[in-house]
């Protein structure tokens, strides 16, 4: 029994040695494999949710994302809807948004990029206030806090 334990222990130690030698050359493959696991995607509270609609104008593209209410279990009452302006966006952005796709405008937003000011006018009682309004590498993003 004592000898079996010793053999097993040495075997496990040598296996670890092999694992470490293989780890770094194989890191890209292992990482690719791990990235395909079902839970390996960033939570929508950070990414902003899936794109629901794209409105393409002459100068820029407005991406309206699906509202995010994700919680640990089920959905939360409070969430946000993210808007992304991409491309050659003007200094003053002014848009009326229907985020729930019910063909009724929910809010209008006016952004003065040079002054970094954002004015929200809610037309739907579910729309609460502006959360984040920030320049990004692709243009500008706004998160508007909404309730279900």
């Amino acid at each position, binding site marked *: 029994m004592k000898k079996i334990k010793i053999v097993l222990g040495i075997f496990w130690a040598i296996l670890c040695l092999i694992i470490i030698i293989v780890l770094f050359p194989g890191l890209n493959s292992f990482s690719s494999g791990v990235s395909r696991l079902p839970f390996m995607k960033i939570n929508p509270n950070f990414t902003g949710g899936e794109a629901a609609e794209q409105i393409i104008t002459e100068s820029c593209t407005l991406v309206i994302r699906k509202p995010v209410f994700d*919680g640990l279990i089920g*959905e*939360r*009452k409070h969430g946000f809807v993210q808007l992304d302006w991409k491309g050659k966006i003007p200094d003053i952005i002014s848009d009326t948004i229907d985020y729930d796709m019910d063909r009724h405008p929910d809010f209008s937003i006016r952004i003065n990029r040079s002054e970094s000011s954002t004015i929200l006018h809610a037309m739907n009682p579910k729309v609460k206030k502006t959360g984040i309004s920030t320049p990004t590498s692709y243009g500008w993003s706004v998160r508007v806090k909404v309730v279900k």
Partner: protein
Amino acid sequence: MLDSFILGLSSGSTCLLTCGMVIFPYLMAGSAGTRKIITDLSFFLLTRLLVYFLLATLAWYFGKTFLTSAIFRNYVSGILYILFAIMLVWYSVSRNRKPDCPAKIVNTVNNKKLVPVFLGVVNSLGFCPSLLLILTKSATQGTIAQSYLAFLGFFAGSTLYFLPLPFAGRLKKKKVFETIGILATGLAGIIFMVKGITNLIGGILNG
């Protein structure tokens, strides 16, 4: 009442985040059995319910005035969090602590049931987001009975999240889990202290 219950269910996780961080380490830090844990938790929840009824009364009568003042919310929650935090940190570092008494002040009172009651009172008065929601709803009710029903529904929904807590007590039989429980109580205190100071500073700056 149904939407209040659903509000309690959907907001209960936030309630657990604030209240659970208190009660969970407390349960693990004592040395009593499962029955006592259930008793303590029952007193804790009952106290919360009674305080909620009191708040329902106040909210119905004074609601709109208090709900619009963010500065008042910051001051009250800030002071309460700091007081509560000091109590928790004192419990975790005090050499004179008795197994199930979180603060020296409670040691002077022989009635051990006071501890969960005290915890229940202070937690109920902390302005966690879910409480603000139900206060808002309660203040808009036409009668005081409707206000009470709103809070009762909310209480029922949020209580479901606390039901698993007594089973955490089984772990505390071993000394190491008791040590972790005591340390976690102190940590919860520090978290509330930082939260309280942040709220107070926010209130002072906005005031």
